[in-house]
């Protein structure tokens, strides 16, 4: 089904102090033939060196802005390149490279502009029960506020066409960008599909991931965002 060159698929990886794991992630994505863009979000460790050595195109924020800001930077950069598809991918090693072609196939097969990875349609081994509960509450909140019938709202693994990428303008710098992204997809009127993916939780990714306090901050960010233009 896949008819595009993998070099035209740009995999955007936002990274903040991910030096230890990032090399392996970039190497695996590069080995699969995709173009890799790492956005170093003001890391204080050797993240940039690791990513550069592994062969990624590097973008460096002069200081830490947040994952949402890094994603938008990577998407903007990909749009200056001959990217036909843009994939967002986490730096902590919890996403599988083998899911990327499935997402791209879904975009082509369904003639959609966004293919959203869903761990709840796929698999999420080692997902702690409390985190499952928080994620499902976030999904319910997003369904109610955006009207999108999605099953997994805070999954960083998603693919989009060039047109879809151009429709996004994330202004939530921090973690609330995932909800904002879905909100913008909904208001863009462009077609989206969900695709089962596997999220592999490790001690490292669990330590870097979101907790209950982050969920409260996300709600506050989303509320504050509605108060101004």
């Amino acid at each position: 089904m896949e008819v595009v060159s993998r070099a035209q698929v740009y995999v955007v990886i936002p990274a903040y102090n991910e030096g230890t794991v990032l090399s392996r992630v970039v190497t695996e994505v590069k080995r699969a033939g995709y173009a890799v863009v790492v956005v170093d979000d003001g890391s204080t460790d050797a993240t940039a060196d690791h990513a550069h050595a592994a062969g990624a195109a590097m973008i460096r924020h002069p200081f830490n802005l947040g994952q949402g800001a890094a994603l938008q930077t990577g998407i903007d950069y990909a749009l200056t390149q001959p990217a036909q598809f843009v994939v967002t991918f986490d730096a902590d090693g919890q996403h599988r490279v083998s899911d990327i072609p499935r997402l791209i196939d879904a975009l082509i097969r369904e003639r959609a502009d966004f293919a959203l990875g869903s761990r709840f349609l796929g698999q999420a081994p080692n997902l702690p029960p409390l985190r499952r509960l928080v994620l499902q509450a976030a999904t319910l909140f997003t369904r109610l506020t955006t009207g999108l019938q999605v099953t997994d709202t805070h999954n960083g693994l998603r693919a989009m066409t060039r047109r879809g990428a151009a429709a996004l303008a994330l202004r939530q710098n921090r973690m609330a960008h995932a909800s904002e992204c879905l909100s913008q997809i909904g208001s863009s009127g462009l077609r989206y599909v969900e695709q089962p993916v596997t999220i592999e939780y490790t001690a490292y990714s669990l330590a870097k991931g979101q907790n209950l306090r982050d969920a409260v901050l996300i709600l506050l960010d989303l509320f504050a965002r509605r108060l101004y233009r």
Partner: protein
Amino acid sequence: MIAQLILSALLAAILLYAWTEYRRSPAVAFLTVAIATSGLYFVWMPEHSTQLAELVGIGRGVDLILYVWVCISLVVLLNLHLKLRTQTELITMLARKIAITDAQSRNT
């Protein structure tokens, strides 16, 4: 009398500030003028604040002023927070532009 003069001078300064803010945000300027004018009125007519407080069921005029002041402070804090977020967005756009320009020259 001394306190009344000092408070009047402070409220007059706030009126001046409202005048300078008018071009940026007429709504904020009008609100500030209304608050400062009411303040000036109650500084010189304190017994009227008690009458107003009794009318709305609070009791003492000083309590009414205090409650209103707390509410105004919270609105001012929220306004400052929103201004800060707007500034952060501008900084983000600037940092992004610099980062992408750097990357384009480095990666080509």
